[in-house]
């Protein structure tokens, strides 16, 4: 079992452990009773049955006792489950961080909703969170049903089209945790992954401030050329790079692409080689992805890669 790292996941993990204990005990007792029943020699061996009613009172009493015990165990399990959740929605604490997560075929769009006087920040496939602060997560789907699940941080919640969802979690310790889409969502369901990075509060605030900046301007001539390639290509129809005219919304925001650990929602690590491979033949990396191949001459491709790889 995974170690719980949020306030919400702790009672859940405790309850899971307790239920497994009960399961093991009941299973062992029942199996032992069955084996005893099969091997035990009856002091009065039954005559080949005649169909007449035998005196079953002792056996019935044993059955009633066992059923009563079962009912008690079930009542305890219900009570424990109610204690661990589900809880009614309560009003959020005032300092909660608000994040909107939108499921797409097959990637996650993550938007830090604007605090009063601030701006919203959009990224993809990487959820950065501060430790020790409640997070209100608002869920939307752009297409089919997905389900947000970061096992170490607690249970899953579906992203249902036309039905906005919400849950709250409070990560307790820094670390890097895996996340998945848990509801079957079609071809690339298996490779719709998410990384959750929990940081100390000040580290997180620094990251968020960095992330809010517009894209870094090209410094090398190669990067400069790459930006030209990007802006002249169909890329801009789907992708946004803040600080440039590119403002498409069908694919992930690329403003700080180079900061992210993976490409294509966890399909491959984010390195220059994988980035080039992804641009040239996305269908080989992640068959079914909606990303078309770049179809650029070698030189332009190299320029584009160096531009994108520089988007820190």
């Amino acid at each position, binding site marked *: 079992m*995974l170690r719980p790292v949020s306030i919400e996941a702790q009672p859940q993990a405790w309850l899971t452990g307790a239920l497994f204990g009960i399961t093991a005990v009941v299973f062992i007792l*029942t199996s032992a009773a069955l084996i005893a029943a*099969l091997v035990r020699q009856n002091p009065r061996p039954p005559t080949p*049955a005649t169909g007449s009613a035998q005196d*079953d009172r002792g056996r*019935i009493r044993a059955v009633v006792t066992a059923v009563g015990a079962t009912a008690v165990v079930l009542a305890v399990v219900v009570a424990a*489950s109610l204690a661990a959740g589900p809880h009614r929605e309560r009003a959020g604490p005032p300092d909660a961080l608000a994040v909107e997560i939108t499921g797409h075929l097959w990637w996650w769009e993550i938007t830090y909703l604007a605090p009063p006087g601030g701006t919203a920040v959009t990224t993809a496939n990487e959820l950065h969170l501060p430790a020790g602060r409640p997070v209100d997560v608002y869920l939307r789907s752009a297409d089919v049903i997905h389900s947000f699940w970061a096992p170490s941080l607690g249970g899953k919640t579906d992203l249902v089209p036309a039905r906005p969802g919400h849950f709250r979690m409070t990560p307790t310790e820094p670390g890097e945790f895996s996340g998945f889409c848990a509801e079957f969502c079609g071809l690339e369901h298996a490779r719709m992954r998410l990384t959750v990075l929990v940081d100390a509060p000040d580290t997180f605030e620094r990251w968020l401030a960095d992330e809010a900046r517009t894209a870094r301007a090209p410094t090398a001539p190669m990067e400069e050329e790459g930006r030209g390639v990007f802006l002249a290509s169909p890329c801009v129809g789907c992708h946004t790079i803040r600080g440039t005219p590119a403002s498409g919304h069908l694919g992930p925001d690329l403003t700080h692409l180079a900061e992210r650990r993976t490409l294509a929602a966890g399909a491959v690590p984010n390195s220059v080689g994988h980035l080039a491979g992804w641009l040239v033949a996305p269908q080989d990396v992640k068959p079914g992805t909606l990303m078309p191949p770049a179809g650029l001459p070698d030189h332009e491709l190299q320029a584009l890669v160096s531009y994108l790889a520089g988007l820190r």
Partner: protein
Amino acid sequence: MLERTWGPGPGWLGRLTDVDHKRVAIRYVLTAVAFGVLAGLLSLVMRLQLAVPDNRLLGPGTYNALFTIHGTAMMFLFAVPVMQGLGLYLVPLMIGTRNLAFPRLNVFGYYVFLAGGLFLFGGFFLHASPRAGWFSYVPLASLQFSPGKGVDIWAQTITFTELAALVAAVEIVVTTLKQRAPGMRLGRMPVLVWAMLVMSVMVILAMPAIMVASTLLAMDRLVETHFFIPERGGDVVLWQHLFWFFGHPEVYIIFVPALGFVSQILVAFSRRPLVGYPAIVGSLVTTGGLGFALWAHHMFAAGMSHGQSVFFMVASMAIALPTGIQIFCWIATLWGTRPALRTPLLFVVGFFLTFVLGGLTGVVLASVPVDLQLHDTFFVVAHLHYVLIGGAVFPLLGALWYWLPKMSGRLMPEPAGRASVALLVAGFHLTFFPMHQLGLEGMPRRVFTYGRDTGWAGLNLVATGGAFVILAGLLVYVAGLAWGLRRGRLAGPDPWGADTLEWATASPPPSYNHAPLPAVTSRHPLWAPAATTVTGIRSEVREILVTTAGHAAPSHRQVLDGPAVAPLLLSAAVTATLVGVVFTPWAIVWGSPLCFAALTLWFWP
């Protein structure tokens, strides 16, 4: 004389139109097993794909098609039909009548079932496979996200098989309630007949929900309605409610007959009456009722109110009680009887050791906070296979071993039976036990591959190995049957010394089942001191005795239908219509008159 009256017509047409419930039922069982074997082979390919991380054996599209067909075929084309098929075979024999209430309808039902199964597998082999899962959640299953004919074929397969299931259910309900041997009042019915009755009533209540749902989905896809399209006012969660309102009772539809098998086998081998017959029957009925009150426990993660989730959690836990009652009654029945550990009983032991664990993980999953963590992970894959294979397939294999001597007249070889039990139980736990742990470690369901970084490789490899042990167990089982059917010792009417009426007649039973129709004075007629029979039923026509529903008092005589061509024609017309609709809505226009014509012929005076 009886043979001439009740036997089939001559030639191949005689075979096709034969209304003998036993022959139709054997076809049902064989067809269902064939579909089940195909679906099982697909799961082996899936296990090969998951054996190692980042495997490139299958692409995601093929894998998704495989698990969709595997689930759909196992549920709709194997599990329900095989249980119903055995019910159609055994119920008339066990209640002492000559045939089912509507012999021609039964023939129609079988051909519709066959056509539905061939349609689904035909689509699969012609690369028009559904890929949206056996549950076909919308909007993934809508035309926008699942183009092509796959989901349409899936939806029509549902219509085919549910139509057939409804036919079989009506047969069993009416036959059970109106054709029992005089004296077999409800309190003397064998537990298996009770189980088949409960299962059939559940089919009648549950199947319409999925037929409506799959038809609405087909209409969304074919004639642009928008029941399930959110942008146009449809509701995707409605689909889940309709699907699981059928889908959860479906599990009990499969499981309740298996409980009946267990009770019959236990009585025969412990050679004593069941402890707590009324409690066991009451539990079956309660399971059937409660089974309709917990469908939304499949949807905790989809978002529901606090009150709803508490209700469905409590209902899901409560259903453990009737099952527990039966388990305890069975143990109390066996206690100290020193039963002979023959293959059917060994399968029952395998059932216990597997199903009890599956039931307990069901209680774990019913707890909402735990379910939100484990839902849609491999833990659920483990749970459902413990319940369905442990709870239904093991009793089924035991039941076949137990009743095949009746069906074939020959005993199956014990050594092969024992070896297959050992291999199957060991292989099963090797395959599915590690999946609990995979689910706890965060492995979601329905993934065609997983990364090396996840650490799930070892347990997956073990599971794949186990799957091949299961295959070996099944091969030994089948080899045993093949040997037994040709060379097995002759069984005689009652090789197990069992108590119920099917063992009173020859093995295999003649076309008319029982020569003089039996009358019954106890719950265990074959253990009663003297057999009693019914007289005054004509043998030159297909006449049976109709009795009252509660007390089975003789009511009147009735002549049943014999073979006819019309059921064949109607099933052909229905098949043409349902298949045609997938390609053009005009199929309704030309298909309806065809069906109407066949019905007219059927009911021509």
